[in-house]
């Protein structure tokens, strides 16, 4: 089992994801430079947070043209697992691998804080170690996390049960008061139609070590590892 963390110029959570995967989970992990055209033998690709190309035009707008993104697209087409975190989520929507777009936060400002998330669907490679409806605590840190999709697209996403995480309060309640950024339908993370591409604004890698306050995020990576393990055995 092998994970790859993509490095775009301006990525700044690449080291953090790498650390959690290789040191905390202890899985084989490599960096994937944005110029690579071939992802090689990889089982899961992480697009980390940060400010690729400074987010200078729109978050993720320039990174999506990196050579590696064509490879990521091919990988995803073949069913490979892709996780876009924060800026990675923005890149995935810009590249069309996930629907919608991430607008500036409702308040217009950057927000860094812990948020509560309700796990909406555990029948995916990314959430199998959560229980349905469970409330978890994972931090966000973004200026553009206000998810928006056309009403048709949002309806489809909801109908297909593709929202994995919603912002909520400590008891799982949702609404304006518990939505930090104005995100449509309290969306914090969604998956693709084929259920192998996850985009989420919260940073699971920041909630993967007890020393830093929460280990809820670690289960996202652990779910992926478990799923990959099962795939391998299933294929035997």
């Amino acid at each position: 089992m092998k994970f790859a963390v993509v490095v775009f110029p301006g990525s700044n959570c690449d080291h953090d994801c790498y650390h959690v995967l290789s040191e905390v989970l202890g899985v084989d992990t490599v960096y994937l430079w944005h110029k690579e055209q071939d992802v090689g033998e990889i089982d899961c690709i992480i697009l980390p947070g940060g400010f690729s190309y400074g987010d200078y035009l729109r978050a993720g707008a320039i990174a999506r043209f990196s050579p590696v993104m064509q490879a990521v697209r091919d990988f995803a087409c073949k069913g490979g697992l892709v996780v876009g975190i924060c800026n990675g989520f923005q890149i995935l929507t810009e590249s069309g691998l996930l629907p919608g777009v991430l607008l500036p936060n409702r308040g217009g400002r950057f927000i860094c804080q812990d948020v509560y998330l309700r796990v909406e669907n555990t029948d995916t490679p990314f959430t199998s170690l959560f229980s349905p409806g469970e409330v978890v605590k994972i931090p966000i840190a973004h200026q553009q996390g206000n998810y928006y999709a056309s009403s048709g697209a949002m309806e489809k996403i909801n109908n297909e049960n593709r929202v994995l995480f919603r912002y909520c309060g400590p008891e799982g309640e949702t609404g304006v008061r518990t939505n930090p950024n104005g995100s449509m339908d309290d969306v914090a993370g969604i998956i693709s139609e084929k259920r192998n591409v996850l985009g989420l604004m919260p940073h699971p890698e920041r909630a993967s070590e007890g020393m830093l306050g929460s280990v809820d995020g670690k289960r996202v990576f652990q779910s992926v590892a478990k799923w990959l393990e099962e795939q391998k055995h299933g294929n035997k």
Partner: protein
Amino acid sequence: MKFLGHVTVTLKRGVFDPQGVTVKNALHNLSFSETEAVRTGKYFEVVMESANPAEAEKRLNEMCDRLLVNPVIECYRCHVEPAEEMESAT
């Protein structure tokens, strides 16, 4: 009367525009190699109530000077037009 003001804000000449440089480089990578330079700016549309066009234009200029534009590094141009069918979007 209702007016629609358009404001285009650009960086003064000589002020460094990192976004412009980054966008230019991205265009080159996408093989728009004919691009020699890109400068970025901001744009505002302001729906406002005013007695007449002259008044609207005067107020719009004041808005620019006081808030929309940072005179230390930016300059702007603006104009107003009657806005009949603008829906108040916000």
